[in-house]
């Protein structure tokens, strides 16, 4: 009854809104701008779209304009899979996808090699996808959770004069796939460096943490790693203040290091540190976005004050990486025409964004230099630590920090080879 007319109308509409765009490079953005994680999603996708609009305004990549389409997932895996299926065939076929959600990424992980659409996972799991021999179409660009955890330990060790021996670190984590992801790295490093790791889970969404902070206060740790997400972060910061725990000792993951986490905490957040793969500050590319897009009303964010905020800058970074991948692919497969998904994959695997290239796009030092290869789909693994001064984020490590790469590589190989064995994949580099 309801089924048939809906399907007919739906397909008609889908057909009507998808005319052929031969000279455009189509990117699928299964985004989320409503629901519990809307603040992160709107900033991130706003940043990507702002950068795409900026590139298009300047004539595109060697004349090829970027086309994109959003589809609201509400961070729900089931909706995400539906969105991916819908977007992948639009406008001649998607050539890149970024879901910004671990669950959705896992849901489409098996489909992307079949569809030959590369997927990026900018700063989230699965970490072992950095092995391009097993996951040729997956790119956890810049830094995965494991690299970040290793860098966190490196930073804390440096802060304590080079060694963490005999110290106590609490891992306060969102009790989900996301919160548990860094445990293999932290456990291995605890054994190797001789510090004690206390694991304290917080049941999602984490709006009540009195018991956890009482436990933390009794444990008297030297540092607390806050591996949080959403509402959990500001609650943690406020509860720490109430229990008299110094915020300077808390080190947040990069999903716990945005304005959306600190501003609601008010004064409690002052002195709080968190990881980032962006150096906070202003850049020529952000100025360009302000003048060329927002002055003419073409910007994507509703609130202009969010330009250059943590999530927005992360989105701009993603946009730059995507455009550089298109450029790299075009240099090999022919300039001035859109590349296919397979060619885009090649571009992502041969990224080389050094400081000179960053300068050219007006983002010098905004993110670490990225150089990918078949063995290393991450391309960097370097991060920074930023601190909230009460008004804005300030980078407190002048240089990029890289943790124990050898250990991370070993874990990546172990885990990805296990996956390959389960799935009957023969690890090999693609040409």
């Amino acid at each position, binding site marked *: *009854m*309801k*089924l048939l007319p*809906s*399907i007919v*109308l*739906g*397909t008609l*509409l*889908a057909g*009507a*809104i998808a005319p052929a765009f031969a000279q455009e490079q189509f990117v699928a953005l299964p*985004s989320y*701008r*409503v629901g519990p994680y*809307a603040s992160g999603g*709107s900033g991130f996708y706003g940043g990507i779209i702002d950068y795409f609009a900026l590139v298009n305004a300047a004539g595109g990549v060697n004349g090829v304009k970027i086309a994109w389409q*959003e*589809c*609201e997932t*509400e961070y*729900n*895996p*089931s*909706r995400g*899979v*539906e969105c991916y*299926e*819908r977007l992948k*065939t639009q406008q001649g076929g998607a050539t890149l996808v970024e879901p910004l959600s*671990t*669950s959705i990424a*896992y*849901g*489409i*992980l*098996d*489909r992307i090699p079949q569809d030959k659409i590369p997927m990026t996972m900018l700063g989230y*799991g*699965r*970490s072992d996808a950095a092995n391009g021999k097993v996951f040729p179409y997956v790119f956890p660009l810049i830094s995965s959770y494991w690299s970040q955890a290793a860098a966190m330990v490196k930073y804390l060790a440096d802060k304590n004069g080079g060694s963490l021996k005999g110290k106590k670190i609490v891992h306060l984590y969102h*009790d*989900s*796939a*996301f919160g*548990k*992801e860094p*445990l*293999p790295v932290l456990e291995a490093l605890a054994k190797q460096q001789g510090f004690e790791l206390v694991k304290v889970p917080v*049941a999602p969404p984490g709006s009540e943490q009195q018991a956890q902070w009482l436990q933390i206060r009794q444990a008297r740790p030297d540092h607390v790693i806050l591996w949080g997400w959403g509402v959990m972060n500001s609650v943690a910061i406020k509860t720490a203040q109430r229990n008299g725990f110094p915020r300077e000792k808390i080190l947040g993951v990069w999903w716990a290091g945005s304005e959306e986490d600190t501003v609601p905490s008010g004064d409690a957040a002052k002195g709080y540190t968190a990881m980032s793969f962006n150096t906070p500050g202003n850049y020529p590319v952000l100025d360009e976005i302000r003048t060329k897009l927002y002055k003419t009303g073409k910007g994507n964010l509703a609130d202009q004050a969010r330009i250059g905020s943590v999530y927005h800058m992360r989105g701009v970074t993603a946009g730059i990486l995507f455009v550089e991948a298109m450029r790299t692919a075009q240099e090999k497969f022919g300039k001035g025409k859109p590349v296919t998904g397979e060619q885009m994959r090649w571009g992502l695997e041969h990224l080389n964004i050094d400081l000179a290239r960053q300068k050219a796009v007006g983002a010098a030092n905004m993110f670490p230099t990225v150089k990918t290869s078949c063995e290393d789909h991450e391309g960097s693994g370097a991060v920074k630590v930023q601190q909230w001064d009460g008004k804005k984020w300030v980078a407190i490590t002048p240089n990029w920090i890289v943790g124990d790469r050898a250990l991370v590589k070993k874990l990546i190989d172990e*885990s990805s080879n296990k*996956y390959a064995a*389960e*799935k009957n994949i023969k690890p090999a580099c693609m040409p």
Partner: protein
Amino acid sequence: MFYREAGQFRTTYEADGQILPIRQDRIVLLATLAIAVVAVPFIASPYLLSAILIPFLIFSLAALGLNILTGYAGQLSLGTAAFMAVGAFASWNFVARIPGMPMLLAFVLGGLCAALVGIAFGLPSLRIRGFYLAAATLATQFFVIWCLTKISWLTNYSPSGVITAQRIEIMGYAFDTPQRKYVLVLLVVALLALLAKNLVRSNVGRSWMAVRDMDMAAEVIGIRPMRTKLLAFAVSSFYCGVAGALYAFAYLGTVEPEAYSLDLSFRILFMIIIGGVGSILGSFLGAAFIVLLPVFLNIAAHGLALPTSVASNLELMVFGALIIFFLIVEPHGLARLWQIGKEKLRLWPFPH
């Protein structure tokens, strides 16, 4: 006119007791099934198959499971997604740990595990009923998801707790394209739906309905409430477990606790409320409504070039308004609307 029964004589008890006594109904159902099995896989696009029809069928099965428990046996449950999760994780573990495990058997075993969990959490129904039971089944939801995140043995010590589902392979034949997955899901759902239809017509179903309508009276006429209620929990959980396994293997491709949130339990509850409580057809209509409406609204909003945030808020509003509308205008759901329509068509064009 469309349902003219003149000339359709039932001369045997078999004819009298068949599922669809009217010939027109039988023709339509068989034609629908034939089209669904033979034509749809060839003409439907991969998007329609993998993003619309497969979830529709899987949710229909889950709604069927909940309808058996809530609609027929009268036991309100908010733990549907938890039973689905048990089915999915159990099937995954059976395939992962026992070499050469046939996939279909793994689905069945997953369903049986869910049935066991269902019986365990159905025990409170012997003492409490109504809203109190709903709150007790809510505990299932929290407990199962907590177990699945806590006990890493269940996820084979995967560091993130999210595992990818194995390839569906039955007797050496891989179900890896949308068409094949669709056919598999369709056959499983059709078979289980037929089973459910017969179950609710048998003495088991009648005892469920007796307990639902008045359990004291049912006990007096010799129905054992404990066995009846627990059987309803077991059968319902079995259906939900199989649906959960199909959801993980044929749709999502991953097995993870977060996909089986409380939100999903509520959605399945809405499906049976909108589709029709205590109706097999209602489970399908409700699932179609809940799966298709958001997608349809989303595509329509996109056609009107609305920004995505406005589009999804609009989607929530229209959805909410329609639910309220249905609850006020037709509390018995879409299935009842169809029944009324059918009765009208029987008399058309001369109503009296």
